[in-house]
């Protein structure tokens, strides 16, 4: 809880000092002091001198550029001929531009909202945790490092190969935990008639029905050597089945160097471990098992009637390789996720400070009136937090409109990731060389932050009053 307590806004800190000073100060009856104040007040030309450096820099490098950009946006790429609002309508034409507009809209709607919600969640959850300081430092840390470094960090996370990118490594790990990791893509029954098994619907099924208490042989060929698990053992004959059971062997019916009888697990042939085996009756699965290291399996509690033994299709689909993070559809959500990683700490710290400032009495009063905790949170805490939440949201919207580095670095120029702020750089500096169109996008971004500007000014005027 250290960060927010230390992080009192400077004004408030100094306000404390001011209160102390007034307490021991001697603010006597106004008249004399006011006159003294007037006499002592420095001349306004001196004030102008203090302001001069700021005004010169701001005038030349911020205010003049705004005016220039507005004018420049009305001219074509060469800057010679007046084109009216063509550059502005151009922003909404062409596939790449439209994707940039669409993505910017997604960013502005999704990123600030989710970041604020995460910040609120973290701030609330850490309120009574002992290691809150550590947690907050960890979550806040990305704010300190460059977006370029964050971009590189996430490029590494999003590497497609699950042996390199931690994102897909986790996805594949979780997936395999539930779905079984061993797969034999390409494996199939031997072709030709009169085989004990045949292919059916992507899976493999016994050609003849199997009676309970019997064994079944399920030979497969075309197993790729790289798919054979290291723990696979030589194929064994299925153990004898008791009544109500079906046993069997699933194996790679191929003897290295030739020889061996087809459809019999000969010496030198490998069992296929980890294959899902199902007993099916009238289209319904009645028993399920997984093969052991030597390829044998035992289906238990099989009804006495005949069933067919099936190896379902997902034994033979290619192994799960994780999500295509930087593919066409996921790229913008993936970059937004990296943005959440960077900015949630900001939201959390501001909201935690707001939470700490809520008077306990208000909450207690609501509780005394019999409100449940959820009602207190929903009807008292959230409304009291509203000003903070609004500031966080507005700040994030301004920030998101300007998002450049993350998209530039993680997106790596993929048009599917494009946003307006990046498009502005691309068309005017990054090869486009059309500063008319670039100016139009810049002015558009400026217009989009105008409501935030008014919000800031109004907030300031309210504080003054």
């Amino acid at each position, binding site marked *: 809880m*250290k960060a927010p307590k*230390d992080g009192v806004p*400077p004004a408030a*800190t*100094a306000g404390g000092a*001011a209160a102390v*000073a007034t307490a021991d*100060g*001697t603010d006597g009856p106004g008249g004399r002091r006011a006159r*003294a104040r007037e006499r002592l007040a*420095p001349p*306004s030309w*001196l*004030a*102008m001198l*203090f*302001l001069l*450096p*700021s005004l010169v820099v*701001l005038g030349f490098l*911020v*205010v*003049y*550029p705004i005016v220039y950009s507005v004018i420049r946006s009305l001219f074509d790429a060469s800057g010679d001929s007046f084109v009216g609002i063509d550059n502005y309508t151009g922003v909404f034409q062409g596939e790449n531009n439209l994707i940039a507009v669409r993505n910017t809209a997604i960013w502005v709607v999704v990123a600030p909202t989710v970041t604020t919600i995460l910040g609120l969640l973290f701030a609330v959850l850490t*309120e*009574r*945790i*002992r*290691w*809150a300081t550590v947690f907050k*430092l*960890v*979550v*806040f840390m990305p704010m300190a*490092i*460059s977006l*370029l470094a964050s971009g*590189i*960090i*996430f490029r*590494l996370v999003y590497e497609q190969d699950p042996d*390199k990118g*931690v994102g897909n490594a986790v996805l594949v790990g979780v997936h395999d935990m539930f779905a079984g990791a061993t797969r034999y893509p390409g494996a199939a029954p031997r072709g030709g008639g009169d085989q004990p098994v045949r292919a059916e619907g992507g899976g493999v099924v016994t050609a003849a029905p199997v009676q309970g208490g019997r064994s079944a042989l399920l030979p497969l060929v075309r197993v790729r050597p790289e798919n054979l698990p290291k723990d696979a053992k030589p194929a064994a004959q299925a153990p004898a089945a008791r009544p109500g059971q079906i046993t069997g062997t699933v194996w790679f019916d191929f003897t290295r160097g030739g020889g061996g009888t087809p459809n019999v697990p000969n010496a030198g042939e490998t069992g296929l471990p980890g294959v899902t085996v199902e007993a099916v009756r009238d289209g319904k699965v009645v028993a399920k098992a997984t093969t052991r290291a030597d390829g044998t399996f035992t289906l238990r509690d099989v009804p006495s009637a005949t069933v067919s033994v099936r190896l379902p299709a997902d034994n033979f689909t290619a192994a799960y390789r994780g999500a295509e993070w930087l593919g066409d559809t996921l790229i913008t959500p993936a970059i937004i996720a990296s943005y959440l990683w960077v900015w949630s700490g900001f939201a959390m710290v501001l909201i935690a*400070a707001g939470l700490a400032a*809520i008077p*306990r009495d208000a909450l207690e009063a609501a509780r005394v009136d019999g409100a449940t905790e959820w009602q207190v949170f929903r009807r008292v805490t959230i409304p009291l937090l509203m000003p903070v939440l609004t500031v966080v949201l507005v*700040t994030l919207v301004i920030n998101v409109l*300007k998002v*450049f580095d993350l998209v530039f*670095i993680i997106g*790596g120029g993929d048009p599917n990731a494009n946003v307006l702020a990046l498009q*502005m*750089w691309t068309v005017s*500096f990054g090869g486009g060389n059309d500063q008319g169109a670039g*100016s139009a996008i*810049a002015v558009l971004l*400026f217009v989009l932050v105008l409501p935030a*500007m008014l919000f*800031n*000014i109004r907030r300031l005027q309210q504080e003054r009053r």
Partner: protein
Amino acid sequence: MTNGKAAGTRTEPGGATASGAAGAPRRGVASRIVGRLGGGFVQAMLVLIALFWLVPTIGLLVASLRSTQDNAASGWWTVFTRPTELTFGAYSALLEKDDFVDSFWNTIMITVPSTVLVVVIASLAAYAFAWMEFPGRDWLFLAVVALLVVPVQVALIPVAKLYGRVDVGGFTMFGSVTGVVLFHVAFGLPFAIFLLRNFFAAIPRDLLEAARMDGGSEWTIFRRVIFPLGGPAIASLGIFQFLWVWNDLLVALVFADTGSQPMTKWLQSQMRQFTGNIDILAPGAFLSLIVPLAVFFAFQRYFVQGVLAGSVK
């Protein structure tokens, strides 16, 4: 329920290092929700979230400490089973590249002056806004607040044109360290003036008037009274500006050339081949983030103050 609350106050991994929260327990709404949910569950979730925040950065660090071959062959997390393969090879190779070392110095040459200039120029203006009378003061300050949110993009093209015209005796502003610094100063000023004025305005009036009665000039008061008293605010502003400039990519991309480029721009130029260049990018990115990270951990309370002091650019 009692069980859950007991779990909530149990010390967790990392709890030993926590300091502030160990004080008097507060019965906030949130804490009660936490209690209801079961402290153990919440703690486990927070541990998971913290891991989620840490793992990517750890990944970068570990990848930077592995050889090119190892990085190409397997994921960085395999070092936890084979820790012997770590090496500083990538770092020493990187530090032998002259253009990288140059870009490191450029980062410092850009960051330090930008920070100092913003602090000095903004303090002067903030003092005038807070303690001096002049016509149009409130309007001018409102204008500064309005400039807080102006996106950098709107100034890129005009300032590039402006810099292109400044060409004195072989020195061209465009592509120079000076140009980059000035741009950062300009876009740092509104926030700086806003932050400092609010702080200065809260300095006790009596202190100032006593100084004025004693015949101190405005310059003396500024130097002797305001600047020392404004310490905390100036510190948070300084750290903020430092991090902002150090971490910038876009401004450098537009205004710096290969001779004046900071680390971020140099690293960006190595991005074209991400997987192939990981032995440059990982240590480079880590070197570029280690300074901000050190500044952050050393001065985090000032940094947080800066964040809380108002909306960030």
